């Protein structure tokens, strides 16, 4: 048993800290500190920077593939130190999800076309999974891909196309056969988002943000060569991709950063003639979530670095997702609560650089409540927490 990092991880940790301190642009860190994300051109720039550090844009890739060739522990440390030092996330869809799937299932042509581009961060991806009538029950999807010579012709609509409005390519699940079991007859296609017949409708979330979209397909023609894996057997690819996410499911280090910000806010906020952090009940609420977070952090570490390592982790990952989102939600809720009346103003523009009207309330007034509202999504997306409990009940408990 050893609770400390190995020396090579410690070394990497120092390197990433220095990188975050010296190289990550201030405006990126600023977005993160406001509980926000970078997107679009900023994401491309960020991926390029990471790539130039030595393939950090693809932290799980081997040296042969152009990645950094890190151990699991180093990958863990990498994700963690970025978060703890207010750097943006590494966009997952490319090197974290579709990249490995292309390595595993893709033709030589697809590999040559996409892998170097993914590594260099030249492509932003989106995911085409959910549909209006298939949310939790993903396999019931109906957007069709009908073979027509060298092409598939797509018709239907996808929901929750996150970052679709910035994406160059989509990897999506399409129905090529409806005659069998619903998991059969699904095919994975890589779709150029500029193909005629694709239309995006923004879906605003109730906090007022635009992160996701509905995607309409009207006779969209995709070359057969863009198929990933066997026709009709795309469910296998989808499950492979799902199993890739090993690090950061619990968002522990992002939550640690948010918690540190919450504590600062509680020190700054006035209460009863003193500071909010000195109100015992508010301090207790903070400590409670801090200890929940510590228990979660250790649990993630136990799962990752216990017997068998990260590859041995199965449905336990569902637990990390459930508890991780609960903790995130609690921290953002407390942050809004900390601001009292100043959680109410809706003036997001005052966070922007160069804003020069008189600000309303302290800085967090610009994001606290919105972030709380926005975070409600986390227990719904990527398989709702109810679905995750079903998974655990079946796979871990055998019920």
């Amino acid at each position, binding site marked *: 048993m050893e609770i400390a990092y190995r020396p090579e991880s410690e070394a990497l940790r120092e390197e990433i800290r220095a990188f975050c301190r010296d190289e990550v642009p201030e405006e990126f860190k600023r977005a993160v500190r406001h509980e926000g994300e970078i997107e679009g051109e900023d994401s491309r720039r960020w991926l390029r920077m990471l790539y130039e550090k030595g393939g950090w844009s693809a932290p799980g890739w081997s040296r042969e593939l152009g990645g950094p060739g890190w151990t699991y522990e180093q990958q863990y440390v990498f994700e963690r130190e970025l978060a703890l030092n207010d750097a943006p996330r590494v966009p997952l869809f490319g090197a974290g999800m579709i990249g490995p799937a292309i390595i595993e299932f893709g033709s030589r042509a697809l590999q040559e076309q996409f892998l170097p581009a993914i590594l260099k961060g030249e492509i932003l991806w989106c995911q085409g999974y959910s549909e209006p009538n298939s949310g939790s029950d993903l396999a019931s999807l109906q957007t069709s891909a009908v073979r027509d010579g060298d092409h598939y012709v797509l018709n239907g609509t996808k929901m929750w196309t996150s970052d679709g409005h910035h994406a160059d390519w989509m990897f999506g699940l399409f129905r090529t056969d409806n005659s069998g079991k619903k998991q059969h007859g699904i095919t994975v296609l890589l779709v150029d988002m500029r193909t005629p017949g694709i239309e995006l409708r923004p879906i605003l979330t109730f906090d007022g943000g635009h992160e996701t979209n509905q995607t309409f397909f009207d006779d969209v023609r995709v070359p057969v060569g863009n198929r990933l894996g066997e026709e009709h057997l795309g469910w296998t690819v989808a499950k492979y991709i799902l199993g890739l996410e090993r690090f950061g499911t619990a968002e522990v280090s992002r939550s640690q950063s948010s918690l540190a910000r919450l504590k600062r806010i509680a020190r700054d906020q006035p209460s*009863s003639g003193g500071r909010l952090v000195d*109100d015992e009940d508010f301090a207790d609420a903070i400590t409670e979530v801090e200890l929940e977070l510590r228990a979660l952090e250790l649990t993630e570490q136990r799962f990752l670095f216990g017997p068998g390592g990260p590859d041995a982790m199965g449905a336990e990952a569902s637990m990390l997702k459930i508890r991780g989102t609960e903790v995130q939600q609690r921290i953002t809720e407390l942050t809004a*609560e900390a601001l*009292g009346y100043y959680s109410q103003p809706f003036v997001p523009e005052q966070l922007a650089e160069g804003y020069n*009207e008189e600000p309303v309330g302290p800085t967090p007034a610009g994001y606290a409540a919105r972030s709380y*509202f926005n975070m409600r999504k986390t227990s719904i997306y990527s398989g709702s927490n109810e679905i995750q409990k079903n998974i655990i009940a079946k796979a871990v408990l055998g019920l």
Partner: protein
Amino acid sequence: MDFSLSEEQTIFRDSVARFVAEEYPFDRRQALVAEEPGYDGAHWRRFAELGWLAATLPEDYGGLGGTPVEGMLLAEQFGRGLVMSPYLATVVLGANAILHGGSEDQKRTLLPQVAEGRLKLAFAFAEPQSRYDLNDVATTARGEKSGYRIDGHKGVVFHAASADRIVVSARTAGDSRDPDGISLFLVDAKAEGLEARHYPTQDGGRASELRFDGVRVGAEDRLGEPGTEGSALPVIERVIDHAIASVCAEATGAMWAVYEQTLTYLKTREQFGRTLGSFQALQHRMVDVYMKCELAQSMVYEVTLHLDVPDAVVRGRAAASAKYEVGRNARDVGQEGVQLHGGIGMTFDLPIGHYLKRITMINSSFGDPRHQLRRYQHLSS
């Protein structure tokens, strides 16, 4: 002991419900809150014509002499329909400040104007450093020969942009957290030296930062009979308890709407070839939602039926306990409503998330649940 509505009260409630259903559908609501002033002036005139602005005011001052129950019924329906208007600012906060703090003359002059919809008010009592402490007033009103000079910063003043006059708490004596020495003033919204920064709130409401820089008011603009200077804290507390009753009823109306809309969704949405409502885990959670609605409903009665008791401690305990219980349960119900809707519950186009926003804003108004728990303890010891 009888918890039934009278026939008149039932008719009143149904007429408000009809207005909300017919005149304030969700898409209309969204259009209204997206533009200034955040509500429809024609609606406001209807409120006046239908007697809703007058409902809870005494007959002596142009009101209809209703009980707090009428105010509860109105707010509940507003909550169900997410109705945003200056009702809370004008009738609940402003008019009650005049009613409980004003001189006979002020009441006779101003309240009939409120009842008729000719006068809109706002109540500026909170400050950046005060959080939820009503005694924490740093704004000063210094006596001058013919009146007062007001200086200070009032924060998150609801619907100040619509108000004709603003009731402002300011200190005529004492240190900034002294219970004594606070007075209330009527300030013209266009007064010289009053600088306002108006903004929308998360829930589509409106609020303002008001900075008073040497704003001059006359001696007659201080609320109350002569000789009552510096004794306004009990008035403020009473006004805020009225506001607590109102927003508790509003939150409970919102909770019932969340309950009904979520239940409908569970009954119709299918996944895995079954309605969501057939899944037992979701059934049990929906039962929890139902129970929380009922508990909140009970606490709305608690505060409403104790609003006019003479003993301020009894009233305050009822208000604190209601705000606490309603707040906690409303938060849970609002969150569960979104969760049980799944992805669609996150969208801007569905009402469900907007209920959570309104509930959250109510929780951070007039003292959040934590503050109310503490207040209840202080009033009980």
